């Protein structure tokens, strides 16, 4: 065993540095996004960037606290934390402050707290705890059902707020099950369902079912000697048809018109109508106008005129794209990929199953945020309001991600002591 060199002595400084760079780069860009000559100081507490400074400092304190607490605490209480967070998610629907149609925030004095940001690490802890159990085997149906339940409860509660964006994030945790040995059949089935989903949105359901039926008939003809294959093919056809029907029904009857429009615009089946395509169009203009090297720090014009709404939160990447150009975007993407790869690398070196699973959870959640948020600003993903980790403005999200990441750094720093 290596000598104990203080709480950060065994910590992975590569992850910590990547974290620090992302947080400071984010802060600079929030400053640039909100900047105007009237409020020059970056510490002006009346502005988003001043507040972000406050969140960053308190975030550091949180990180330090996470590192200081004995790791056995985290191993002992995941279900308790998970339960408390679920109660908070219920409470926010009842007592929360309604902002823009959803009750996602507690209002405490001048500050707002978003419990769904804290549900992420709690769910990751609970999932890791459960899957690392001695008698838990991923092939068993019981395991699949329990893990799915752990993953599904928080998003279902979040949907009550309603906040579809934050709820979708949890689907990324299914990737963790794959790493832990879930058959790749499920992965392919997942891919197939997503394809079917998109096709169902794009094409008429009868044509689609007709085409599937044609393939099924050919399959049956081909495998006509194997009764079992025929049954499987027929079953697959029935399920696919049901899925197509339900997607069609959900799209036309359950989704709100604005959600429908967003999807339609993204799929290209609807022209840029006012309001829906607006954000993405302005976002593209901002990023596109950055060119190769960008316009320079504070020199952006698009994000300052309130062209892009949510410019310091969900659309912060516009400012990066505009002011730092392709080089800055490359750097940002590089930092994220480096952090994600580092997490995977570190996760694989854990002796403890718990730490490894938790690491994969962290990587999956961060990856989902990264992919959807950036994709959204570039017009590649639907506009669902989720922040870019460590960079977007917001106290709750920064705190949530800080705890999420530093728990993993903590587990890694004591990897020689954690046995399971």
């Amino acid at each position, binding site marked *: 065993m290596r000598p104990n060199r203080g709480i950060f002595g065994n910590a992975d400084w590569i992850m910590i540095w990547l974290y620090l760079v992302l947080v400071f780069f984010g802060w600079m860009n929030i400053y640039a996004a909100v900047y105007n*000559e009237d409020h020059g100081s970056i510490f002006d507490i009346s502005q988003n960037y001043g507040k972000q400074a406050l969140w960053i400092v308190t975030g550091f304190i949180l990180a330090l606290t996470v590192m200081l607490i004995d790791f056995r605490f985290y191993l002992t209480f995941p279900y308790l934390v998970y339960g408390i967070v679920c109660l908070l998610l219920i409470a926010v629907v009842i007592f929360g402050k309604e902002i823009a149609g959803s009750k996602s925030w507690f209002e405490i004095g001048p500050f707002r707290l978003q419990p769904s940001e804290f549900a992420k690490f709690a769910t990751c802890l609970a999932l890791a705890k459960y899957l690392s159990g001695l008698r838990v085997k991923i092939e068993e149906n019981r395991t699949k059902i329990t893990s799915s339940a752990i993953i599904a409860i928080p998003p279902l509660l979040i949907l009550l707020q309603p906040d579809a964006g934050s709820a979708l994030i949890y689907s990324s945790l299914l990737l963790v099950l794959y790493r832990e040995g879930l058959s790749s059949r499920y992965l392919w089935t997942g891919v197939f369902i997503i394809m079917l989903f998109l096709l169902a949105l794009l094409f008429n359901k009868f044509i689609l079912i007709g085409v599937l039926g044609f393939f099924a008939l050919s399959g049956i003809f081909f495998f006509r000697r194997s009764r079992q294959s025929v049954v499987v093919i027929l079953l697959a056809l029935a399920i696919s048809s049901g899925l197509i029907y339900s997607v069609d029904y959900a799209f036309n009857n359950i989704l709100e018109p604005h959600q429908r429009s967003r999807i339609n615009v993204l799929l290209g089946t609807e022209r840029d109508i006012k309001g829906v395509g607006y954000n993405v169009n302005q976002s593209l*203009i901002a*990023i596109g106008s950055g060119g*190769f090297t960008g316009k320079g720090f504070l020199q952006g014009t698009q994000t300052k005129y309130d062209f892009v709404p949510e410019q310091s939160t969900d659309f912060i990447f516009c400012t990066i794209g505009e002011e730092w150009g392709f080089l800055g975007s490359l750097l940002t*993407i590089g930092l994220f*990929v480096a952090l994600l*790869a580092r997490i*995977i690398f570190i996760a694989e070196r854990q002796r403890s199953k718990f730490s490894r699973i938790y690491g994969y959870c962290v990587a999956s959640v961060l990856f989902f945020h990264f992919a959807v948020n950036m*994709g959204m600003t570039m017009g*590649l993903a639907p506009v669902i309001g989720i922040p870019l980790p460590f960079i977007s403005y917001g106290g709750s999200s920064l705190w949530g991600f800080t705890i999420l990441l530093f728990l993993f750094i903590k587990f890694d720093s004591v990897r020689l002591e954690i046995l399971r």
Partner: protein
Amino acid sequence: MNPFADRRYVFLILFAFVAMIFLGRLFYIQIIDRSYRISASNNVLRYVTAYPSRGLIYDRNGELLVYNQPAYDLMVIPRQVKNIDTADLCTLLAISKEEFISKIKEARKYSSLKASVFLKQLSAEIYGAFLERMYQFPGFFVQVRTMRKYPKNIAANAVGYISEVDENTIKKNSYYRSGDYIGMGGLEQSYEDILRGKRGVKIFVVDVHNRIVGSYLNGLYDTLPVPGLNVVSTLSSSLQEYGEKLMQNKIGSIAAIEPATGEVLALVTSPTYDPNLLVGRVRSANYKKLLTDSLNPLFNRALMAMYPPGSIFKIVECLVGLQDEVLTWNTVLPCNKSLVNCHNHPSPLDLDGSVQHSCNPFYYMVFKKILYGGATLELAKGEGGTSEQGLNAWRRHVISFGLGSRLGIDIPNEKGGYIPTSIYYNKVYGKNRWNFYTIYSLGIGQGEIMIVPLQMANITAIIANRGFYYLPHLIKGFGEHKMVLPHFTVRNLTTINPEHFEPLVDAMEKVVQSGTATRAKLKDVSICGKTGTAQNPHGEDHSVFIAFAPKDTPQIAISVVVENSGFGGTWAAPIASLMIEKYLNDTISRPELEKYILDEDFIHPKAEKKEVNKPERVD
């Protein structure tokens, strides 16, 4: 080792795959496709605010009080000002170089990215000349908006004016931006939200020379301004105009209310000012002048000037006495001048006569009875309570007439006057150190008691209604709706039983028929009134008169105050009478009386003091 460890590569490949897609997309939109850069080139879009037209203000008969006229403001976006010939621009705009520099500095202080007003209200010639050469001055453009105009030059204080928002307002209310106009005072302020409408924005594409190339995306993101709603006021412009005419060269006010609704028919303050003075470029200079005028024309006397009401308060005292059962219509009291001074009239008087002749000793005794023997004291009559209990009981009745605090009319700066409390006297004299003899002047409406002219008119409306009032207000409706705001339809009751009012109305009729206000007599219309004199320690007393008419179906309740003109019957009463005639009949049958009023000048010192047939000081 873990059998599924190789699956880590699926993750790494997925990360790399997404990163490559993003980089490819970024490479395309940032480097290959130039259209984004073109549509975002620094000056490409100009946001021109489309100002809504401000709602007009009409009087109760649909006559215009306020309308709009277009004005042209020169705007500047400091960051876009590049390579311009400053001297040339100064000549074009007829301003000095120093002015130019200070104005640019000011604009930059507000924001270098947002447009702010550089020069307000260009003349038509300068506007035309600038428009032709605008392309030479990038960063400058013209914004069209409207100015207020007042066709009748009346009701300046009731209507208010509009002026540019100050920085405080911009900080407090995110709607406003530098250069916006906001209603100040009067209806313009109270109904700002209704009158102003909603700004729209037009987005234009401009080239590097600041020339407009066209509208952005064919106006897809433009928003149209929503015009403000028109406001219909309760004022009668002909009555208001006539009131202002009668009050010329006098200091004072007239407030006229329709008793059945609380609608304010006229709100005259004198001296007043021409509302057109507070419009356009001349506004700030004129405003300073008005502000320093020793006669204070910006001071809305009808709402803000507090006077001791004098004898008109006797009608309130009379009603309180009746309610407290210390008085009946059969009570007879002598005019005992040893208690308090009085004038010559028949004595002893009954209650009816006491109103008609406004006998001071009578009300001196009534007030004493109220303080020590009022039924609301809930003490056995004769035993007496403390002065404090007595004053509290009296005050409860008095404030039910809308006195002692602001009534809540729908324009700003109203004052509430003052009805003294026992707490006040305890502070001044000490607890149990004061009694009736300390405060007896309250009984005849003098001493610490203060009321404003609007409250006087409101008391009159209460008598006219025989016991209740509606909040006086100036709004009759807005837009298409002739709706009345709900809190103006609440009937406010006094603490006095309705049956006490009718005999008082008869007595007030006699005041005009054969009492202290015979100058207010009008043929074929029974006017009920009461004279008063507001004591003025600084000079000649103020003449006060309240009246309503017709007696049985009251349509107008009015109060008139003429400062420094002495007794109420001489000046205030005839003015009220002429106003009533104007409102009820729309013609004046007494031109000589009108001339007598119009010719009188209480402001400018007279070369030789001609003795107007000054009557004996009866009050």
